[in-house]
């Protein structure tokens, strides 16, 4: 059982508090992504778990053992860095073997293990090369290999795919996830890429300024974002957000257009709806709003349509194989896909 427990973690750099209190429990075998914009403290949290950064207060418990005061070498973790950090003066074989060599394991065990790992990652033919002679994808594999050599209690990934091109990134995403499931090692994965977080994780932690905005399963976070920040960070194209006035059961758009909803709301609210949930049609029906198309982006599988309801800008994702209405389009916003947020706090209205 190798769960990871982070309790009341706080981190100050001088007078600047970058993590004002962070707690997280990762179950054994769980894959958790720490997702957030750059500077949100996600890498700092990972480095604290690894023991590479000192914490101001709090506890880190890995596999039931409080490792807060331990050196990185005694924490039984493995880490994959953004720049891979392969030892440039050592061959791939020696890069993989290094951790076991430090532990003074017998030579034949090291050879056996390097063979296993290199076969698993299909890098057998690269063992004699130096890191500089490898492509980005191959370096990434070697870095992965080095992490799994020792069968650690936990994997820590620090944006491991951000130096790869898009195609390779998609491929490695799947590979890392498969590998993690196969090995069943508890994983913390830091990324700023919402697609990586959505596709790979059991749970996602969305971070902003060192604070947790939301923790949940990927679809939970997509379907019921806890705040405006989460709503805009998850999903592409980003969720449409419009500040509207409420009038009984109706939402009043800045243009004066009215949309009746089933909920009773008070005062001003921020209305959110994902571009892919908006229905665009040629005919005007009841409870639909007039929509002026400004620009169409062709993506192949779908079209992204930028347009306006009055002066309010809206983005609509539209299937590629349906012809666009030529004149007089209108949109309807299905009630069960509407999100409401408090305009002041940005929090979701229950």
């Amino acid at each position: 059982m190798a769960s990871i427990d982070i309790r009341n973690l706080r981190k100050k750099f001088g007078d600047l508090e970058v993590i004002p209190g962070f707690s997280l429990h990762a179950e054994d075998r769980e894959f958790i992504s720490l997702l957030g914009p750059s500077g949100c403290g996600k890498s700092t949290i990972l480095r604290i778990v690894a023991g590479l950064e000192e914490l101001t207060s709090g506890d880190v418990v890995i596999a039931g053992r409080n490792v807060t005061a331990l050196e990185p070498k005694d924490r039984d973790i493995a880490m994959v860095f953004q720049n891979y950090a392969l030892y440039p003066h050592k061959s791939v074989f020696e890069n993989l073997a290094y951790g076991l060599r430090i532990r003074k394991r017998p030579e034949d065990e090291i050879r056996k293990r390097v063979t296993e790992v290199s076969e698993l990652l299909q890098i057998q033919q690269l063992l004699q090369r130096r890191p500089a002679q490898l492509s980005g994808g191959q370096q990434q594999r070697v870095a992965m290999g080095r992490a799994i050599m020792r069968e650690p209690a936990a994997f820590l990934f620090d944006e491991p795919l951000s130096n790869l091109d898009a195609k390779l990134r998609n491929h490695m995403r799947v590979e890392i996830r498969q590998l993690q499931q196969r090995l069943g090692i508890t994983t913390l994965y830091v990324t700023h890429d919402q697609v990586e977080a959505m596709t790979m994780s059991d749970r996602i932690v969305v971070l902003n300024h060192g604070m947790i905005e939301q923790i949940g399963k990927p679809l939970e976070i997509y379907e019921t974002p806890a705040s405006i920040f989460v709503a805009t960070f998850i999903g592409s194209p980003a969720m449409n957000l419009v500040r509207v006035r409420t009038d009984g059961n109706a939402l009043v758009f800045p243009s004066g257009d009215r949309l009746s909803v089933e909920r009773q709301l008070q005062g001003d609210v921020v209305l959110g709806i994902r571009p892919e949930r908006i229905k665009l049609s040629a005919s005007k029906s009841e409870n639909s709003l007039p929509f002026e198309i400004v620009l169409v982006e062709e993506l192949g599988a779908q079209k992204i349509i930028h347009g306006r309801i009055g002066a309010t800008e809206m983005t609509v994702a539209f299937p590629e194989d349906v012809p666009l209405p030529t004149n007089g389009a209108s949109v309807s916003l299905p009630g069960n896909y509407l999100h409401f947020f408090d305009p002041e706090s940005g929090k979701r209205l229950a």
Partner: protein
Amino acid sequence: MAPKSRLYWIVCYFILALYGVFTLLPIAYLVVSSFKTQLQIYAGVSSTFWFTPTLESYRFIFETKPILHMLMNTLIVSVGSTVFSLVFGTIAAYALARYRFRGRDDLAFYILSIRMFPPIVAALPIFMIFNNLNLLDSKIGLIIAYTSFNLPFVVWMMTGFIKAVPVQLEEAAMVDGQSQLGAIRDILLPVLRPSILAVAIFCIIFSWNEFLFALILTKSQAKTLPVAIPEFITWTEVGWNYVAAAGMVLVMPVLIFSFLAQRYMVRGMSMGAIKD
């Protein structure tokens, strides 16, 4: 970019050749002078390169002065001060490159500024201190003096080199199970090896050529070769041929050494140039 014209290259090579002559002529003059007699030296321009070579000057200098002893002193002091400078300088550079602390940049500049003030300013105080500590005319004294001048250079250069090595390499080693010191030994130092070599070469050459401190701080036991050379110019004769022969003995080892190590020297200089 359009290919360069023939004329461009002719002019280029002409200028380079001129520069080559400018820098090599003194050395060529030293070489030929060391194989001449005193008479041949004063014989005029026409016989500069046309004469019967003789080893007379070399025989004379080795017979009249303990040249080998002084050469050995030069070697011991150069290597000694280089080792000390590298060990302490690299440790200091590691701290400056890897840790954030109050006044770090000021400290780095202060260390460099030691290199900027003229050595003669420090000569008298060092002489007095060494006199009190009984370090005058000792090799260890000279090693200490040279180390104090080489250290700022080593710290400055090595700070740049260490900064250029991603800290993640050491961190990866630490996560792999190594201590911080172990990570430095296993990962950082091997990666830095060419840089350390480049810096070492510059230190050795500085100490090898040093004249002022060797003149002031040594008398006989620890005397280095550069100090002995001018002694061939006396009240009674100006022995240019002896000066040249002793000069050759001093220059040759370092010339051969630099030739073998030029790859690292170029690397050292260009790395220093692109340092952020």
